C-alpha cells in the first residue's frame, strides 16, 4: 500500500464539459482511476470552480456555451500563476490549426474524443509528473533565494565584525586614495593601513586565494597581526614573518595570501616594499615622470615555512608628492567578451596617457569599463602619496591604565650582539617599556623616531660600517640597502648597547637614552656643523634626532650617542 501511495497521488481534477452525458462518463472514468472530481458545464463555471477549489488538473472541452474552453484555459492559467495546473483539452477537433489553438490558449495537451481510458490515465499521470516537477523547481528556487538572502545577511554581519577589527586603520588619511568594492572582503581582497608609533605608515594590499567565506576567514588574523604589530612599532620584516607563520599555521595547504606590504616614511622620505605574488605596484616619481615597478620577488604569505620564509624588503627614496600605486589582479585579469585579458600593457597605456595624477583612478576604471562593458567587483586599487609629515596627524594612542603604578626612577642596560642584531628588532620592546612612564606618552612618536634613528645609526653606520653618503641618489639608495642586508647576513661580531635612565625631576622627570656601538665612529664635529635640514636623502638621522629631542650629544668619536627627553608635571 505504502509503495502505491508514494507513486500514486490522488488528484482533484476539474472536468469542464457541456454535454451532461460526456461529463458523467468522464467523471466516472476519472473517479475509477482514484481521483476526486469537480465538474463544470461551461467555461465560466470552470473558472469559478477553479477559483474556489483549486483543482490540480483540468480536463477542458474546447467548445462550450457562455465561455469556451480557450478563454477558460487562459483565465485559469492566469489565476494559477507560477503553479503548474495542467490543462488537457478534450476535443473532437482534428484540424491541426484548432489543436494548435488549444496549446496557444495555455493547454498542455489534448485528448481526442471518444475517450480512451488507458491513454487518459497515462496523460493524467504524465501531467502530474510535470506538475510535481514544476512544484519542486519552484520550491528549490525559493529555497535558493532564501539561502541567498541569508548568505548576504551573513556577509553583512561578518563585514560589520571585520570593520570593527579593522577600525583602527587609517585608510581615511588625506594621502591615501583607494577603490574597493564594499564586499571585496568576500572576493579575498584586503586593504589595511596604519601609522607606526614613529608616524610612518604601513599599508597592506592582500588577495586571498578563492572567493566567499574561505577567502574572508584568513583576513581577520592577518588584520590583527598587521594592526597589532604596526602599533607596537615592529618593522615590515617582523610583521611579515608573523603574518606568514600565522597564515601557514591556520590556512589549508591550498590557501594563501598574495600581498604587498609598504612602509612609507614621511620623515626619511622613503618607501620600503615587500611584494609576495601581487601584480607589479608602481612608484611614481612626479618630478621625473618615471614609474618604477614594484615587482613581486616573493612567494605569497602562508606558503613557505617560517624557516624558509624570505622577509627581505626593498627601499626606494621618495620626494614629497611622489606616489605609490598598488592594484589587485582583478584589474589585470578583467576579461572582455572574447576572454581576452585587460593585461599589463593596457594598464601601462593608461599610465602613459595620464596627465593629471589625481585622475588616474577614474581613467583606469573608465578603461576597464570600455574594455569589458561593465565593472567587476573584485578590483582593488590604492594610491599613497608622500606628504610632509606635518600634514598627517596620526591618532594619539589610547592607554587604559591609571598611572598609579608608573615607574619613575630606574635604569636598564641592554647589549645586543651579532646573532641578535641579525634577526631581532628590540625597538618595540624598548618603546613598550618606556611608555610605562606616563610622562613620556605624549611624545611617544618623537621618542620612537629618535630611538629608531639611534638604533639604526648604531647598527648600520656603527656595527655594519655603512657610509650614509651612499644614499645621495636613488640608485645609491637601493645599493645602500642591498649592502646593509648583505653585511647583516655576514655579521660575526659587534654590539649595540642601549642604556635607558629615567629619573624624577620635581613634578616631571627626564629620560636619558644612551646608545653605543662597536663601530669605528664618525667625525662628530663635521656632522654637527651641517644645517638642520630635512631634504637630503643621506644623514637625515642625525638631523632628525637633533630636531626631535631636547638634547643630543655624541662622544667617543661618534660611537656613543646620548639623547635626553624631559616632561613636566602631568595635568
Amino acid at each position: 500500500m505504502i509503495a502505491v501511495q508514494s507513486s500514486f497521488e490522488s488528484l482533484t481534477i476539474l472536468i469542464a464539459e457541456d454535454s451532461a452525458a460526456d461529463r458523467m462518463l468522464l467523471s466516472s472514468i476519472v473517479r475509477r482511476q482514484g481521483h476526486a472530481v469537480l465538474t463544470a458545464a461551461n467555461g465560466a463555471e470552470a473558472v469559478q470552480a477553479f477559483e474556489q477549489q483549486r483543482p490540480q488538473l483540468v480536463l477542458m472541452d474546447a467548445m462550450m456555451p457562455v465561455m469556451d474552453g480557450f478563454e477558460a484555459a487562459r483565465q485559469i492559467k492566469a489565476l494559477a500563476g507560477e503553479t503548474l495546473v495542467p490543462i488537457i483539452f478534450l476535443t473532437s477537433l482534428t484540424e491541426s490549426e484548432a489543436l494548435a489553438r488549444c496549446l496557444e490558449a495555455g493547454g498542455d495537451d489534448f485528448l481526442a474524443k471518444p475517450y480512451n481510458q488507458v491513454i487518459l490515465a497515462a496523460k493524467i499521470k504524465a501531467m502530474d509528473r510535470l506538475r510535481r516537477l514544476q512544484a519542486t523547481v519552484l520550491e528549490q528556487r525559493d529555497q535558493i533565494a532564501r539561502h541567498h538572502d541569508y548568505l548576504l545577511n551573513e556577509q553583512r554581519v561578518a563585514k560589520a565584525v571585520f570593520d570593527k577589527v579593522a577600525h583602527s586603520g587609517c585608510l581615511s588619511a588625506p594621502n591615501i586614495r583607494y577603490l574597493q568594492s564594499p564586499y571585496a572582503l568576500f572576493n579575498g581582497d584586503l586593504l589595511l593601513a596604519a601609522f607606526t608609533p614613529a608616524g610612518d605608515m604601513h599599508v597592506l594590499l592582500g588577495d586571498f586565494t578563492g572567493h566567499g567565506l574561505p577567502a574572508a576567514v584568513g583576513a581577520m588574523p592577518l588584520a590583527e597581526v598587521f594592526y597589532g604589530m604596526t602599533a607596537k612599532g615592529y618593522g615590515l620584516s617582523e610583521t611579515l614573518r608573523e603574518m606568514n607563520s600565522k597564515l601557514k599555521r591556520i590556512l589549508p595547504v591550498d590557501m594563501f595570501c598574495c600581498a604587498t606590504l609598504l612602509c612609507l616614511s614621511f620623515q626619511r622620505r622613503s618607501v620600503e616594499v615587500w611584494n609576495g605574488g601581487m601584480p607589479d605596484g608602481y612608484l611614481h616619481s612626479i618630478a621625473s615622470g618615471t614609474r618604477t615597478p614594484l615587482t613581486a620577488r616573493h612567494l605569497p604569505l602562508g606558503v613557505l615555512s617560517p624557516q624558509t620564509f624570505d622577509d627581505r624588503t626593498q627601499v626606494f627614496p621618495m620626494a614629497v608628492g611622489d606616489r605609490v600605486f598598488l592594484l589587485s589582479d582583478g584589474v589585470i585579469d578583467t576579461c572582455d567578451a572574447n576572454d581576452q585579458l585587460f593585461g599589463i600593457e593596457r594598464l601601462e597605456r593608461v599610465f602613459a596617457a595620464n596627465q593629471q595624477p589625481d585622475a588616474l583612478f577614474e581613467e583606469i576604471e573608465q578603461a576597464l569599463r570600455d574594455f569589458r562593458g561593465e565593472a567587476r567587483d573584485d578590483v582593488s586599487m590604492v594610491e599613497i602619496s608622500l606628504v610632509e609629515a606635518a600634514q598627517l596627524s596620526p591618532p594619539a594612542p589610547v592607554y587604559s591604565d591609571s598611572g598609579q603604578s608608573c615607574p619613575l626612577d630606574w635604569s636598564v642596560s641592554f647589549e645586543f650582539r651579532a646573532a641578535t642584531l641579525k634577526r631581532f628588532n628590540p625597538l618595540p620592546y624598548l618603546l613598550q617599556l618606556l611608555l610605562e612612564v606616563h610622562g613620556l606618552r605624549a611624545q611617544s612618536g618623537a621618542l620612537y623616531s629618535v630611538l629608531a634613528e639611534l638604533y639604526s645609526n648604531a647598527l648600520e653606520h656603527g656595527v655594519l660600517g655603512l657610509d650614509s653618503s651612499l644614499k645621495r641618489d636613488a640608485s645609491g639608495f637601493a645599493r645602500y640597502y642591498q649592502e646593509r642586508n648583505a653585511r647583516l647576513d655576514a655579521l660575526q661580531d659587534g654590539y649595540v648597547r642601549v642604556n635607558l635612565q629615567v629619573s624624577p625631576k620635581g613634578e616631571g622627570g627626564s629620560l636619558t637614552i644612551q646608545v653605543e656601538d662597536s663601530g669605528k665612529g664618525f667625525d662628530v664635529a663635521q656632522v654637527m656643523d651641517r644645517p638642520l635640514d630635512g631634504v637630503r636623502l643621506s644623514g637625515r638621522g642625525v638631523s632628525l634626532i637633533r630636531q626631535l629631542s631636547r638634547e643630543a650629544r655624541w662622544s667617543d668619536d661618534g660611537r656613543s650617542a646620548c639623547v635626553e627627553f624631559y616632561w613636566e608635571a602631568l595635568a
Partner: protein
Amino acid sequence: MSVVTEVSQNGQKLTISIKGRFDFAKHQEFRESYENLQPKPESFEVNLRDATYLDSSALGMLLLLRDHAGGENAEIRLTHANADVRKILAISNFEQIFDVA
C-alpha cells in the same frame, strides 16, 4: 577528459596533463589524478602544454600536490607552460618552489 594522467613504466613518475582552463573546476579531477596511486610516484610532472589559463585556485592545487609529494622535498616539474601561464607562475614566484621548465 581535461586532466590526463600517465604513469611511467616503472611507476616512479607521474605525468599529469592539463587541458583548457586550469581553475577550480578541475579541483576534483586533479586531486584524484595523484591521490590514490600505489606505489606513490617519486617524481611528478604537470604538463601545461594545453593549459590556456591558470588561476589562484590552480596555484593552490599545485601546493596540494607539492604537499602530497613531500612538501619541501617534493620533486615536481611544471612543463611546457605558455607565456600567459608562465607570467602567472612568475608573479606568484612559484618558480622558487617548483621546477618550471
